[in-house]
């Protein structure tokens, strides 16, 4: 594909509900990353996938957050029992190993 795509672009949910965010990386990129950006802040690393290796989940803020990457391509970030502090823009990036990371447009999550 031309670039990293993410869906939905916006998601409004009620506190306590589960949400799923999707990322389609650039074709051929084996590395995939999720970041979170809270209002007016820099980006915070969440999770990293590289090929068939075990993912680096060290940035996930709580066990309510999980992510998977099926078939080495599409990734889904799931947030269970959402809280208001989960409101942020969730950005996905992909790259060749140790190369420039290209970002998608992000999903703006609002938890009411």
């Amino acid at each position, binding site marked *: 594909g031309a670039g990293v795509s993410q869906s939905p672009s916006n998601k409004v949910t009620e506190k306590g509900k589960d949400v799923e965010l999707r990322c389609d990386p650039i074709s051929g990129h084996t590395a995939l990353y999720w970041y979170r950006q809270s209002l007016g802040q820099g980006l915070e*690393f969440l999770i990293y996938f590289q090929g068939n290796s075990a993912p680096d989940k060290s940035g996930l803020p709580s066990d309510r957050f999980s992510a998977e990457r099926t078939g080495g391509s599409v990734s889904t970030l799931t947030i269970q029992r959402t809280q208001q502090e989960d409101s942020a823009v969730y950005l996905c990036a992909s790259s060749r190993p140790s190369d420039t990371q290209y970002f998608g*447009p992000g999903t703006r999550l609002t938890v009411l």
Partner: protein
Amino acid sequence: SQQGEEDPQALSIQEGENATMNCSYKTSINNLQWYRQNSGRGLVHLILIRSNEREKHSGRLRVTLDTSKKSSSLLITASRAADTASYFCATSPLGGYKLSFGAGTTVTVRA
């Protein structure tokens, strides 16, 4: 945690003027990258400078890197209204992959 810190936090300039922003970081890096973000959405990659490089150019952008001072600067020459955005530096650690971002510099270019 954020490794990079941008300075200034905000910058307002007249169209046609140059804009300079700085980034400082704490630990040794493999490379440093600059990104632009419009309206709080996706990041656009601008330029990557490796730890063994001192200066790099791309169009109206000029990036310098001083590893002894652990700092980098981004210069945008002949600014345009379309350059209005937030600019972030991001460092890639030695042997690693997690990018560490600063809080960004918000640039406003007045017509």
